[in-house]
C-alpha cells in the first residue's frame, strides 16, 4: 500500500518546515502541506475531509503542529479511519527521520514510535549540555 505524508499547521509552519526538510533531505521527498487559516474563507473541516477522502485507500501519516489545537482536533475526528496515523507536535528532527524511512519501513506505527523517541532527545538546552562531558567513542 502506498504511503502518504501530510503536514498541517496554523499558518505557514507546514510549508516552512517542508522548505527546511527539502534542504536537508533533498527534493525527492514527497509530502503535502496544509497551511490553515491564511484566508478569510478557510474551511478547515472541508480541507481535512478532502485529504482524508483523497488518501482513504493509502497509508496516511498526518503530522500537525499543536496537540489540542483545532487542526489536530479536526484530524482527530477521523482517527478511526483504517491505516491513518496522526502525530501532533511537528518538529524538524522527527520529520527528517520519518520522511527518510517512510517508504522503506516495515511497519508505519513502529516507525512513528521509534522516531518520536529519538526526536524527543534532540530537543536540548545546549548551555547545560556543554557543561556535561560527552564520552569519547572508540572503534
Amino acid at each position, binding site marked *: 500500500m502506498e504511503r502518504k505524508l501530510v503536514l498541517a499547521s496554523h499558518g505557514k509552519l507546514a510549508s516552512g518546515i517542508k522548505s527546511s526538510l527539502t534542504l536537508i533531505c*533533498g527534493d525527492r521527498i514527497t509530502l503535502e502541506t496544509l497551511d490553515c487559516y491564511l484566508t478569510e474563507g478557510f474551511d478547515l473541516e472541508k480541507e481535512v475531509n478532502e485529504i482524508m477522502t483523497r488518501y482513504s485507500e493509502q497509508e496516511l501519516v498526518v503530522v500537525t503542529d499543536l496537540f489540542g489545537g483545532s487542526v489536530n482536533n479536526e484530524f482527530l475526528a477521523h482517527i478511526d479511519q483504517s491505516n491513518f496515523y496522526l502525530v501532533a507536535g511537528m518538529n524538524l528532527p522527527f520529520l527528517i527521520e520519518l520522511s*527518510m524511512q517512510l517508504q522503506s519501513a516495515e511497519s508505519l506505527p513502529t516507525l512513528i514510535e521509534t522516531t518520536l523517541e*529519538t526526536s524527543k532527545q534532540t530537543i536540548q538546552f*545546549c548551555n547545560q549540555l556543554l557543561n556535561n562531558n560527552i564520552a569519547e567513542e572508540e572503534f
Partner: protein
Amino acid sequence: MILLTRVDHRLLHGQVAFSWTQGLGADCILIANDDVPTNEIRKTTIKLAKPQGVKLVIKNIEDSIAALKSGVTDKYKLFIVVESIADAKKLADAHPQIQKINLGGIKAKEGTRSIGKAVNVLPSEEDLLREMVDKGIEVEIRQVPTDKKVAVTEVL
C-alpha cells in the same frame, strides 16, 4: 566495510548527520581530521550533531589510517567524513579499500573554481582528484543522498 568517504568542510552537521547516515545505512561515523581532536569546541559541536544509534569516532588522519589498516573498523558499516580533498587523498592512498569519494562541500576561496553545487576546488586539488580517478576511485558530487550523482570526471 567502508560505505563512503565524504569531503565536507563543515564535517558533521545536520545534512550529513541525518540524511547521509540514514541514506547510507551507516552504523559508524569516522571524523578524520587533524584539528578536531585537539579543538574542544569543534569536537563538542560535532559530538552534539551525532545522530542517535550511531557510533561516532574522531581521530586525526594518521590515527584514522592506522585504525582502518588494523581491521578494527571492518565490522562496521563505516561512513568517513573529511574536511578536504587532500585529506581524502591521504586516506585513499594509505587504504585502497576507499573506493568511493563524495564531494559535498568545499568553500570557495581565492583561486578556486566551482565544479558543482557548493564544491569549489583549487587547481592543485583538481590534480589530486584526477589522480584518484586514475586509480579507479569513484569520485562524485552530491549534496544529499537523493540528489543525482555527478561524476567528477564530467567537470574536471
